[in-house]
């Protein structure tokens, strides 16, 4: 946590500092290699990290962070008290309710897109003003602005159901180097680990040859592509050393149960391992939240699985001390309509919805904003995603109103230039 005597933005990166970030990261990496593991671990704990939980399709705010029981659109569920007096969650989230003193819930999100196709990208890119170039997703932005930690593990890792691989498209104009390394079904990319038939010596020989060919290749190609290629290979090599991160089979049954033996439970457990190992930005995706039909039974099935995993990781990060320097975010591309359709579902609703945060730089135990009695609209000021991006950057110590990207000489703001951080959410 930042000192009470100073504010996060006083520790912000300047543009000059940012431009030198790559060199800094290299130096840290070198130091990490020389220091004792305990010292390196202690140092790494002070590095800022991010856990970004993405509930794709749209979790209902009414069945999670902002219940409106016994109202027209409130649905069947009760509200339950949380660890912060006066704050209530849906009864589907009993475990997260016990973590509320560590959370900061924003109940007054008011965004623009009510379609997945545009909403997912717009929300994860922070909805900047149109600049003629695609903006990076939050993970790519952090990868660029903060680089890898001293662990030298990939800066931006994405744990997701389905396929894995290197996802360059997240990086937008920053270039493919800042894309995500995706772990499909929580497993490492295919062929990450050295084949059993290949000896260490043979592998080293091959690497020498690869580096030589890389140099020749790089001379004839655009720099950002060859950089990305080398970067991915280098980080993969680091991952190869840490195969234990992905292997949940050797973990105690109690741990597996505490996170839930579900897709999101096991992925969140891998995410915890990655954060502990030093990955800068870990995104965990869960799909299937687009409950236009049977919303209430759907959420009765989905939310408790998320709740168990989310509460467990927040609790564990707090216990290990990592939460102090890890920004945790759980959100979707929008909320769901208060109106209940004929398929007993809720449709897309960007006008009044919620997200939850915890950890680094955010005010623990706070509820920011409110919706009206029926949950249909935000009561006072609504916050668009641009404000949320400013908030996240500031929570991580990046002055979002001063730091800029350098797009081949074109300075670009890192967050919407007409918006500001949500100060009530920041320590």
């Amino acid at each position, binding site marked *: 946590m930042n000192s009470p005597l100073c504010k996060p933005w006083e520790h912000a990166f300047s543009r000059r500092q940012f431009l030198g970030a790559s060199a800094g990261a290299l130096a840290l990496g070198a130091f990490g290699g020389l220091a004792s593991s305990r010292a390196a671990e202690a140092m790494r704990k002070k590095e800022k990290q991010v856990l970004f939980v993405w509930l794709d399709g749209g979790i209902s705010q009414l069945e999670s962070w902002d219940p409106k029981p016994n109202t027209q659109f409130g649905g069947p*569920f009760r509200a339950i008290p949380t660890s912060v007096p006066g704050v209530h969650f849906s009864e589907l989230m009993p475990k997260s309710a016990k973590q509320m003193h560590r959370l900061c819930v924003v109940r007054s999100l008011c965004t623009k897109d009510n379609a997945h196709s545009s909403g997912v990208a717009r929300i994860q890119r922070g909805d900047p003003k149109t600049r003629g170039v695609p903006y990076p997703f939050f993970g790519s932005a952090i990868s660029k602005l903060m680089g890898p930690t001293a662990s030298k593990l990939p800066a931006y890792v994405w744990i997701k159901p389905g396929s894995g691989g290197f996802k360059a498209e997240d990086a937008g104009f920053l270039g493919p180097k800042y894309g995500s390394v995706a772990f499909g079904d929580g497993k490492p990319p295919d062929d990450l680990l050295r084949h059993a038939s290949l000896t260490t010596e043979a592998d080293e020989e091959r690497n020498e040859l690869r580096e030589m060919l890389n140099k020749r290749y790089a001379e004839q190609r655009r720099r950002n592509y060859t950089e990305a290629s080398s970067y991915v290979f280098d980080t993969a090599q680091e991952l190869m050393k840490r195969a234990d991160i992905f292997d949940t089979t050797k973990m105690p049954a109690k741990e597996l149960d505490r996170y839930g033996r579900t897709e999101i439970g096991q992925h969140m457990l891998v995410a915890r391992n990655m954060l502990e190992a030093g990955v800068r930005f870990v995104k965990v995706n869960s799909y299937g939240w*687009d409950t236009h039909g049977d919303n209430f039974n759907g959420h009765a099935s989905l939310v408790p699985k998320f709740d168990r995993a989310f509460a467990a990781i927040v609790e564990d990060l707090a216990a290990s001390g990592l939460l102090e320097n890890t920004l945790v975010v759980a959100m979707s591309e929008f909320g769901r309509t208060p109106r209940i359709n004929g398929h007993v579902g809720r449709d897309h609703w960007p006008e009044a919805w919620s997200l939850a945060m915890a950890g680094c730089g955010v005010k623990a135990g706070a509820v920011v904003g409110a919706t009206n009695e029926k949950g249909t609209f935000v009561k006072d000021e609504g916050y668009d995603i641009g404000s949320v991006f400013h908030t996240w950057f500031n929570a991580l110590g990046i002055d979002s109103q001063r730091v800029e990207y350098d797009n081949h000489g074109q300075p670009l703001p890192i967050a919407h230039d007409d918006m500001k951080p949500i100060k009530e959410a920041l320590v």
Partner: protein
Amino acid sequence: MNAVPNANPGEPKEIKNIVSDQQLLCARFSPCGQFLVAGSHEGSVRRWRVAGEKPAAAPNAAPAEAPDALADLLSDDKKKAAKPAKAKQQDAKAAGEASAVEFAPLAPLTGFNGWVQALAFHPSDKLLFAADSWGKLNCTAYDGESPKPRWENPAAHDGWIRRIAVSPDGKLLATCGRDGFVRVWNSADGKPVAKHEHGSDIFAVVFAPDGTQIVFGDGLGKIAALDFSAGKIAREFDAAALHKLDRLQDIDGLRALAFVKDGKTLVAAGLLPKNGGTVQGTPMLLYFNFASGKLEQQFTHGDVKDGYIEDIAVHPGGYVIGVSSGVPGNGMVMFHRPDEKTAFYFSTKIANCASVALHPDGRRFAVAATNKGSNGNGRRLSADGEYLGNNSPLHLFEIPA
């Protein structure tokens, strides 16, 4: 009352359509046929007094004997006013038209929380049992002007009570819910009689015809018969076809249980799931031999967009009336005889059906549905800027003789 066991009805004809201002979940006719009740999304039970002419007798069946509400319930003035209408209806029927019927709204029963999805009537006493999604179970003597609860248990279950069943002799109730319990109660005073912890969300419960067992089913495709006096599971039924784990979501396909073929066959109604999120799947009925537990027939009808059979009623003629709610705008009313490969009647004219109530005369049934255009992303405001909710039309059908 003598039912009309007409097993070969013609096409049902819609004779009335009323709109409830609140969205409805479950509709039931009282055994006397004079009341229609429906549980709502807003913690109340909506009520209507059913007044009008009983349908004409089927030419090849025993006559319907549902009491005429006009005769029993209306004031003398109203009776006088109603008589010409009655005569007119009879004339119309003679010309081959459907019966006329009126639904007079009565004060709703209030004091519930969340949703009221579970409703059941006592077979002979004028008692209505209702339960809400916060765990309250209530018994109300429903025939007065201002019905009062006979007894009430505010914490019968921990949370959502999904169904109530009444034993054939009316002495016992069974309830089931999201807390994973089935519970048996004394219907006269609400005292607990038995309970069974199943462990996962239970969607439906029904008494076996002899009254010694209850049959319940969960969202994971497990159905079991419980000898509640002995506290033992007597039999299990494999309804795995009603469940699918799609990514993170358990799609709970079961919605209703009932007995057909003189109690020899158990029918489970719901969905053959395809995918979660915007749940899609095909309406499905599973027929089990109750004595052996063996699946006798897996019947599906329609398309994946047609969704859940949300509710069923067993007609005295031996067939199942099912109503479904699919993706918005899609709904179905379907008649199916056990053992047959196709539905002998179906209609997709009504959007998103939530429940079906069969009148005790066997000639009429009501379907609680949803207004058209109920879905849509983003804003939909009224002319004065109010955020609009949906409502539930109640469609009353007459089954031709």
